[in-house]
Every structure is written in C-alpha cells, then in structure tokens.
C-alpha cells in the first residue's frame, strides 16, 4: 500500500515562509490555533517549521494570535 504524502511534500514545498499567509492558514483552526500533526499530516521536522513560521507571522501581525 502506497504511503500517503503530506501536502508540503506533494507540492515540493521545502521552506515554509512566514509571509505566506495563505499556505499557513491551511494549517490553522478557525480560531487561529495551529492544528496538530495528526490533522496536518506533517512530519516532526515540518511540523516544527510550520510552528515557527506561524509564530513569526503572528509576531508580524500577518496572522492573529486569537481569531474571533
């Protein structure tokens, strides 16, 4: 059985940019929380990179800390 690929590998995304809000929003809940690895389907390294990118984006006001 073929292993299912995660979204980043499937689209050959090697670096998660904090400015790429559209990409980051895919991995956020409607409240702005980062989804867990089970829902994101990412590996450990990618999940950590995602968390860093989201936190940078929040610091720069591109993403909310808490969405209403």
């Amino acid at each position, binding site marked *: 059985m073929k292993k299912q690929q995660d*979204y980043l590998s499937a*689209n050959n*995304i*090697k*670096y*998660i*940019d*904090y*400015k*790429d809000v*559209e*990409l980051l929003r*895919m991995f956020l809940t409607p409240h702005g929380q980062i989804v867990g690895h089970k829902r994101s389907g990412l590996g450990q390294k990618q999940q950590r990179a995602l968390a860093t990118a989201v936190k*940078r984006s*929040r*610091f*720069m*006001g*591109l*993403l*909310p*800390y808490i969405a209403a």
Partner: protein
Amino acid sequence: MENKDITVDSVEKGRGVYEVGFHIVPIVAEADLGIRVTAIRDVIEAAGGSMISDEYPKHMELSYPMTKIAANKRALHHSAYFGWMKFEVEASGARDINTKLKADDLILRYIIVKTVRENTMVPKKVLQQKRGDEPKVEEKVEDKPVLTEAEIDKTIEDLVIS
C-alpha cells in the same frame, strides 16, 4: 588538551542569507515610502550586505493593533506598510542591522530571519488546487449504436414473441 582555534569571530565569518521583514508606520505618506526603503537598504549595505531580492512596502491592515513608542509617546497603530528585503551578510553584520533598525522610530516592527536564497513563496496555483478544486474528470459518453426505426421494431417484436 588540544587548544582548538575556534573562536566566536571565526564562526561568525561565514556569510548567511537573511531576510528582514518590516512594518513602516502608517503616518508616513505613500510618496515618502521610497525614502524609508532607501534608508533600510543603506543600513543593510553599510553592514556589508548584498541584496538578493525585495518587495516594496504595501499598505495592510494588521491582525491586531500594535503600539510603538517614539519620542516618549505611545502610539497605537491598526495598519502599516509591510515590505521585506532578502540579502547576504556576515553574522556580525546582521547584528548591526538589528541594532540600527531597532533605533528607527518610523519602523513599527521588524523581524530578521535566516532564510534560503531561492524564492520561498508558494505559487497561488498550487494553493488553489488544495481547496477541493480538483480537476474534474470528464465522464466518457459511450457511443451507442444508432438503430433505425425498422431495427427497433424488430427488436421489440423479438422481445414480445420471446
């Protein structure tokens, strides 16, 4: 024990690719943005940085209000001009840039990150595919044999008889 010649300076000598993202306060007139961008570029070049790519600041609404203390006054901002610059510089140069940007009263907020030389923004086309806009598979319409009236009558008769 062997004394290795690894010092802080020798480690820092390697040039790295950095990116600075910044928000310029909205009180700056749009016509004067060019001056602010040139000022930031000068800071980078003065620290020995060589530019790789950049994006001119664009006005945007912030996700949450930010405060900036300038000239002993606290000001709350709901929007800003966001731009970024990617450059190559030594680690010590990056530290100088950080110090100088911190002192700039017209920069609401900034971030310096280590990045890669290649373009890191994902093209929009890739993102659109994710949202269930999968290419529709066209259903194949099989060519049914066209029967003439006589043939149809005949087949009906056969069915009725049997």
